[in-house]
């Protein structure tokens, strides 16, 4: 762990004295007032379980620190973004301008996250993204006050490209939804796969969020590639895996995907998903003490098994904590706080990681295989993989 608890007791005592002395005075010393964290996550809709997991992870870390980060208690201002990009700007604006939050935390959906990033940039509010993988959050939209503790869509895909090439496949068909996350994932895969000598012979897409895959499955069967790479998540992932098996393709043409294909979906996918190989920055069966401890704590506190989203939320709190401790809770020292966060070594349950220059995690990507209801780690597909952050104009 990178924090020690002495400063917080000192600070707590000082605040107590200050509070007594100031009496009826309105203004309190900034470091004693609670830190307002605007939690903008989906609490309704398809992504609700993800939002809840992220929030749980974040709160778990704060709880483990005795309820304080950098000496300050946390005031959560919750807002349900409903995964709706059209309301995203207003919602983020509300948190910043009306509720005057110090830090914005969110979100799952990339479109919403981009709107949040824009508001954060315009108002110079600190933003930590605990999931949305849109490459441009740490690409053209990168900023000193924007951090991400999850992944960029490129990362797991690039790692998978290397894996598939190493298995000897030469011709691959990709399939995904026609939206930013899907396109970025396919691009990452293609980059690694073609660099290793393979060829993506066809890039199929399905309009988002359509889940009718029959036509595309027929095309795949006709093309007879060596392997298929897909990016789907949530409902689409459940359906696709089942459809793929029902079309008889599972045993004929190996299917690979970014981890979201089998994350949170195994109960619904059942037998169709067994044995599938995916890549992600987290897996089941990691042997580190940190991960074991985290899982135990999480299960005890929330009576649920943690997933990659909970880990990302947990790490968001760790990152924020690193910044707060460095400035002893004084968020007005923004530059120092940002520097501390940039240099933080986050001891994550997924494995330790650092921040890239564009504020994205530089992390190991695991290759996992579905066994039962788990994505068990097989090997490390890519060690210390950093997103190339194309278009980011930060030094």
């Amino acid at each position, binding site marked *: 762990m990178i924090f020690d608890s002495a400063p917080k007791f000192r600070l707590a005592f000082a605040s107590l004295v200050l509070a007594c002395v100031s009496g009826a005075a309105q203004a309190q010393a900034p470091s004693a007032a609670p830190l307002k964290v605007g939690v903008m996550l989906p609490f309704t809709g398809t992504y609700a379980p993800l939002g809840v997991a992220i929030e749980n992870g974040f709160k778990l870390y704060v709880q483990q620190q005795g309820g304080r980060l950098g000496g300050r208690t946390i005031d959560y201002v919750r807002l349900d973004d409903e995964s709706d990009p059209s309301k995203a700007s207003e919602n983020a604006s509300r948190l910043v*301008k*009306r509720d005057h939050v110090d830090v914005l935390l969110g979100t799952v959906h*990339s*479109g919403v996250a981009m709107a949040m990033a*824009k508001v954060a940039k315009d108002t110079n509010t600190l933003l930590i993204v605990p999931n949305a993988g849109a490459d441009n959050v740490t690409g053209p939209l990168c900023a000193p006050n924007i951090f991400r503790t999850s992944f960029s869509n490129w990362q797991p895909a690039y790692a998978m490209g290397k894996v598939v090439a190493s298995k000897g496949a030469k011709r691959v068909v990709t399939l995904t939804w026609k939206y930013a996350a899907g396109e970025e994932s396919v691009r990452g895969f293609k980059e690694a796969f073609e660099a290793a000598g393979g060829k993506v012979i066809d890039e199929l897409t399905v309009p988002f969020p359509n889940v009718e895959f029959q036509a595309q499955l027929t095309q795949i069967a006709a093309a007879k590639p060596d392997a298929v790479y897909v990016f789907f998540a949530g409902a689409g992932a459940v359906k696709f895996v089942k459809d793929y098996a029902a079309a008889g393709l599972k045993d004929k043409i190996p299917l690979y995907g970014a981890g979201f294909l089998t994350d949170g979906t195994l109960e619904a996918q059942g037998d169709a998903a067994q044995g599938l190989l995916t890549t992600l920055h987290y897996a089941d069966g990691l042997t580190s003490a940190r991960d074991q401890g985290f899982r135990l704590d999480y299960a005890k506190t929330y009576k649920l098994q943690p997933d990659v989203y909970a880990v990302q939320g947990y790490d968001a709190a760790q990152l924020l904590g690193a910044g707060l401790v460095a400035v002893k809770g004084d968020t007005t020292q923004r530059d120092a706080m940002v520097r501390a966060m940039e240099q933080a070594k986050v001891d994550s349950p997924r494995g330790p990681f650092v921040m890239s220059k564009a504020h994205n995690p530089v992390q190991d990507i695991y290759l996992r295989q579905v066994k039962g209801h788990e994505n068990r780690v097989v090997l490390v597909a890519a060690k210390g993989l950093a997103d190339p952050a194309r278009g980011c104009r930060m030094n």
Partner: protein
Amino acid sequence: MTFFTRRRAWSASSWTLFLLALAAAPAMLDGGFELELLSKVMIMSIFAASLQLLVGCTGLVSLGHAAFFGVGAYATALVVPQAGAANLVATLAFAGGVSMLFAVVIGLLVLRTRGIYFIMVTLAFAQMLYYVVHDGKGFGGSDGTYLYFKPVVGMFGKTWVDLADGRAFYWAVLAVLVFTLGVLRVVMRSRFGHALAGIRHNEQRMTASGYPVFLYKLASFAIGGALAGIAGSLYAFQYGFVNPELFSWHQSGNVLLMVILGGPGFGGAIAGALVFVLLSDWLSELTKHWQLIFGLLIIVSVAMLPLGLTGGVAACHATIERLCARRRGVPAKTVPKEERAL
């Protein structure tokens, strides 16, 4: 004063009071957020008023009006310079023009239908445009596009007012609202407006009287579309962000709701927009499942107040008048049955 001049005086004074209150708001509110909210109310009022022209004045119930709002917003997002401020008037004119063009093309197709068909095909065309910006290249896909600067008001390269300031932007929106209301008033008072009213009441009779009904409806559709596009443009400037959801049928349904709940007339549309925006803002704070309450409220209010809020107010007013007249023993002025709201 006779009944009608009294009504007109009442109406004129309430309009003036209302607009003055809106103009004075920035002085009284210091929070940036409240001002943004009121700004949004005004933008939605323009949008609702543009639909009222179709629904209330011409009898065209469109469930796809968000299409033009979205076109205006996207036209703005695509035309503003990446590094620098756009000219407000020029951009609004452009957005309005592009929306009008779309409205004419779509109108040529959908105005061939009426009744339930019209409702459905307008919905379908809005959905089609949704897919165009959602799947097409260059629009930013499902995540949308950004605008990086607020516009400026100026001419011939000189900037008079920079709208980056929240208050300045608010007053600019107010100015556009006043302009919109002015345009609509002129339209409705003209012969064209009277013809629209005739079409709403009895289309067959108008056709029999020799009016080119199709062209009138198309013109109304086009004007409504243009004004919706202007509202969309302002929306894009306010939030700096456009995405395909602006075309969604939820957006179309919401603006239709504003028009119906508000009641007849452009004042009704504004009232509806005000209540809708503030209510959804307040309710969403209250509970996670606020849409349940909202849905129930919609059902109940449409059922109980067929003439909307202003209709309800007018009905109360009329009922009070009738009661007073009865007490004075004077025969009450009869209000036609269709116009009685309660």
